[in-house]
């Protein structure tokens, strides 16, 4: 695939993952997860009896009705969560991603797995609405949501950093007449004024020797990468001038 198409392909996927992230976050907004954690804490603080086959939790504080708390949280969530809309959007994104795969003749296992986790959330929800009072199903559903959120964040950041690398490579492409200089000033911390002074010094040095080319127009010095802290910069300028500036 041509590099320009690779960029387009991943950009389209990235947009779709952002939309998926927004969708799954809508569940997180209404999720009783925090409450679930509180309830779990209460369970852990309580006495635990171990039999040969299972753990039995015995909550000391009789006032805490775990099941009721779960049910209340679930009812609140169900009232706010628009499942049909969520379902419809997931189907739409799934179709869109498949179309991207087809168009670019590519496939990404990472994204296929991500979509699977969204469909798993849907399956868990369908099971959950059939058994309103089953707390185990409820815990399973919200765990699947958490898992899906983690996967979406991870996929999104992986695609984002891959795209950034591609874009950096793109911006570092040199013309035949150009040369690159990578300059780092180490073991120092600069404030904004000092930082700008240093950049001005580099630019002034470049401009002053470019005057030697009397009748030729020389491209200005371009900054293609810049990191603050001390200073790490990648600059591109006329090949002969950059050679003279650095190597000699």
């Amino acid at each position, binding site marked *: 695939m041509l590099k320009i198409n690779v960029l387009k392909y991943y950009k389209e996927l990235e947009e779709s993952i952002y939309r998926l992230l927004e969708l799954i976050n809508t569940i997180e907004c209404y999720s009783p997860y925090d409450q679930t954690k509180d309830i779990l804490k209460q369970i852990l603080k309580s006495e635990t009896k171990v039999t040969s086959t299972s753990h039995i939790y015995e909550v000391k504080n009789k006032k805490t009705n775990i099941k009721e708390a779960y049910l209340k949280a679930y009812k609140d969530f169900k009232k706010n969560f628009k499942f049909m809309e969520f379902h419809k959007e997931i189907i739409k994104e799934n179709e869109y991603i498949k179309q991207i795969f087809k168009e670019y003749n590519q496939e990404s296992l990472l994204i296929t797995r991500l979509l699977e986790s969204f469909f798993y959330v849907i399956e868990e929800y369908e099971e959950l609405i059939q058994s309103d009072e089953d707390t185990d199903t409820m815990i399973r559903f919200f765990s699947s949501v958490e898992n899906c959120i983690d996967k979406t964040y991870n996929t999104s950041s992986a695609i984002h950093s891959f795209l950034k690398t591609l874009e950096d490579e793109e911006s570092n492409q040199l013309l035949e007449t150009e040369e690159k200089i990578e300059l780092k000033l180490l*073991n120092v911390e600069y404030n904004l004024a000092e930082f700008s002074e240093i950049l001005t*010094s580099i630019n002034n040095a470049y401009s002053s*020797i470019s005057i030697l080319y009397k009748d030729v127009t020389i491209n200005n010095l371009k900054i293609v990468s810049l990191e603050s802290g001390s200073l790490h910069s990648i600059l591109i300028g006329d090949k002969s001038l950059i050679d003279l500036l*650095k190597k*000699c």
Partner: protein
Amino acid sequence: MLIKIADLIYKKITLEGKIKLNSEIMNTILNDTEIIASIEKMGIDTEESKENIKAALNKATKELCSLVSKAPAIEVDDINLSVNLDNQKYLEFSNKLLDTKTEDKK
């Protein structure tokens, strides 16, 4: 130029505890055969444009000296240049060339 200037500035700090005067560095750069050869390679007649070259190099040298003096170490592409840390004690005493052993005796 940048590598030569950094080398001159950092080496001078190491050996004498003070930064070499810009004018000394400018003279070194102006008389550097490698730099002159590089300018000739750019298609510039170094004999005809002597004054222009001098002015351009002086200005560039001044800017690069100011840049290098702002950090104890620089890296140009993969070449790393820095003030020799073993002798950096000299810097603490401004232009006096004291070493730590003499200080201890006092």
